[in-house]
């Protein structure tokens, strides 16, 4: 595990306090052996053994290998047959996209709680712009530490983080410190960090371009930086020539483009003290469901997937989701699903620190048709809740609510 920064003499340990990261607002976060690590969590019996995820058929290919398997020479995109010849003791799991997506969402949730400026590149990789988080949480290196810590505690996964002034350098930095590492490249050290790297490290340099550069004796990024930009443009064409010249000098103007998650509306509550009482959790789920449904109705929206988030006292977090048969904006329906999900998570005896209810797959209510059911009353819970909305608008929040949520007066039995 590497925690360092690029200094005058090469990589040195990261000091406890530094302002060398002042202009390094870009983080590149790369999950370590992501699929294999998720499988290890799902299958504790595989811990300590080499783990490979990939197709198990005769033409199967390795999708992910953990760091033990990698010491045997196994890497992704390798035919499975070959991988198993190199590492016959490996435990092999077929890819389970749903689990990886869920784990990825949970990790992205952590990133998004730090800054909305999150640009996911794939399930296991994202760029963050943390310039806005500085005042609250500390400098970029501090924020990177915080994220690594939360990912480890809440999801039991490790990641590697590159901290730099541009996307390109941040991504190179995270590659250099894998696994479970952190590498800060202060802007003053950018060229020193880049120049010894092979030209293949430059963004957009594939085999063909690398070959073309080699023919001209350009082997390292430093070599490319020393060549006048016009020469590069003549050799590689205007666009590529200009870009490589800029990158080699450490210039990369690409911004982090936040991609908002699938539209969702959610609410969560962190308890003052951890709660194990099922009744209290049920009441909280109802309160959160009411809140989410009210926000859906206020925005003229409906959603289809109900997600419940349960965080234990030790910060480990479980999310469970269910897709309903019909779109809804009704608290009663959301709460029904949320209670079932809580029950099926099997955490009814556990002390919880936080619970959350979220509705995903949100869309405009005006675009959704409703299959009517037999014997369904013309006016049902939706109409009751709409009436509650009107009362709230007129008399203020808290005036009307489900009886379970009402504060009990002294005289109440």
């Amino acid at each position, binding site marked *: 595990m590497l925690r360092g920064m690029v200094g005058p003499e090469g990589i040195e340990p990261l000091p406890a306090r530094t302002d060398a990261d002042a202009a390094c607002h870009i983080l590149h976060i790369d999950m370590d052996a992501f699929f294999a690590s998720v499988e290890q969590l799902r299958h504790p019996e595989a811990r300590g053994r080499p783990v490979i995820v990939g197709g198990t058929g005769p033409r199967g290919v390795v999708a992910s290998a953990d760091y033990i398997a990698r010491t045997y020479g196994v890497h992704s995109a390798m035919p499975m047959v070959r991988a198993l010849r190199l590492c016959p003791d490996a435990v092999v799991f077929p890819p389970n996209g749903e689990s990886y997506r869920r784990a990825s969402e949970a990790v992205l949730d952590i990133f998004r709680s730090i800054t909305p400026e999150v640009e996911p590149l794939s399930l296991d990789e994202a760029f963050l712009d943390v310039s806005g988080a500085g005042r609250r949480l500390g400098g970029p290196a501090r924020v990177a530490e915080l994220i690594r810590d939360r990912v480890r505690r809440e999801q039991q996964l490790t990641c590697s983080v590159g901290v730099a002034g541009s996307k390109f350098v941040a991504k190179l930095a995270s590659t250099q410190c894998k696994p479970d590492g952190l590498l800060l490249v202060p802007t003053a050290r950018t060229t020193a960090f880049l120049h010894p790297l092979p030209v293949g490290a430059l963004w957009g340099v594939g085999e063909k371009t690398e070959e073309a550069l080699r023919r001209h004796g350009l082997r390292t990024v430093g070599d490319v930086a020393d060549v006048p930009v016009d020469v590069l443009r003549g050799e590689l064409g205007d666009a590529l020539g200009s870009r490589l010249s800029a990158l080699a000098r450490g210039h990369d103007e690409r911004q982090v483009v936040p991609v908002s998650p699938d539209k969702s509306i959610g609410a969560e509550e962190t308890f003052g003290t951890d709660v194990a009482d099922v009744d209290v959790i049920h009441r909280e789920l109802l309160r959160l469901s009411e809140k989410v449904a009210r926000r859906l109705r206020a925005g003229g929206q409906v959603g289809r997937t109900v997600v419940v988030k349960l965080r234990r006292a030790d910060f480990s977090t479980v999310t469970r989701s269910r897709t309903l048969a019909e779109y809804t904006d009704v608290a009663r329906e959301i709460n029904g699903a949320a209670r079932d999900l809580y029950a099926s998570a099997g955490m009814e005896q556990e002390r919880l620190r936080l619970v959350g209810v979220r509705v995903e797959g949100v869309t405009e209510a005006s675009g959704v048709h409703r*299959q009517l*059911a037999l014997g369904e009353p013309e006016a049902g819970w939706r109409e009751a809740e709409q009436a509650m909305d009107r009362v709230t608008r007129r008399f203020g929040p808290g005036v009307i609510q489900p009886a379970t949520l009402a504060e009990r007066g002294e005289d109440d039995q």
Partner: protein
Amino acid sequence: MKFRVERDVLADAVAWTARALPVRPSVPVLAGILLDASEGESGQKLKLSSFDYEVSAQVSVDIDAEDPGTTLVSGRLLAEITRNLPPQTVEISADAGKVVVSCGSAKFTLLTLPVEDYPTLPEMPRVTGSVGSDVFAAAVSQVAVAAGRDDTLPMLTGVRVEIEGDTVTLASTDRYRLAVRELSWSPENSGLSAVALVPAKTLAETAKSLTGGAEVSIALSETESGEGMIGFEGGGRRTTTRLLDGEFPKYRALLPDSFSSVAEVQKAEFMEAVKRVSLVAERNTPLRLAFSDDRLVLEAGTGDEAQAVEVLDASLDGDEIQIAFNSAFLLDGLNAIDSDIARLQFTTSTKPAIITGKPADEAATADYRYLIMPVRLSS
């Protein structure tokens, strides 16, 4: 045990019995088919039985028995083997833990399962009446199409069977449509009144497989609660099924009895048009129907997606109406009516519609009704 039987007779009997074999047997013996060769009043018979604690199946066939006896062998394997035997006489003998099946030049040796561990099949309840096997199979398939498939609502996965004297009423609903069929039968006791909730899938398969004989006898256990059971017998085959528990919706109250418009459309044309137009309807988007004096306009899709429209001749008596349906539910209903002309009855665009065949005799009420709930359009 030793007997001879014709290959086709054996293969049919084994295949039918194998239907009730559990996919994942809770105890190993349930994977077996019990073979019992005996000499009775009606000659030499082989009785084949299977059972999975829900459904039991039993069939008797004529054999040429040399030595009576009982044995239990893997049902799946026996079914595979008999299906692939050449069309000749099959000889089966059992001895010392092995069963030998020979046919022509082929010979199979199978291991037996312990007969003494095999559960006793439930007794057939007392016969309560009988019905023509083809009529019964057709009626069940008309109704089972509307049964639910969601096991979290078990009472909706059944067909409700109501017996009132010489009338049997079958009904199924998945909350979005309701199919009801009335048929006449011959009860043993004309004052009989009984109800049962039978798993729809099992009932549909059973009814279809009993069309070999002219009649099907139906046997219903007396008690409505507890271990309720229904039995069917026809053409030498008998099967019992455990009944479902739970309250079936009070569906009669849901069937509207007055309408503001009645439309009639050629069924085949209508079905073709529904299939064509709904090609552009993505999942969950409805098919819109507009009935006016002499025509029906079918539409699907809206402004920012693919759209389709088709116009058909139709007759309308009453108010013009626009109404939207899930096209799959509509097709199920049209497909189930047994008439070339579909009759649709409406009240409003948010109230259930009824699909029936046009009755041959105007005075008669349709014996099959398919109620379909509309889709409420959002704007």
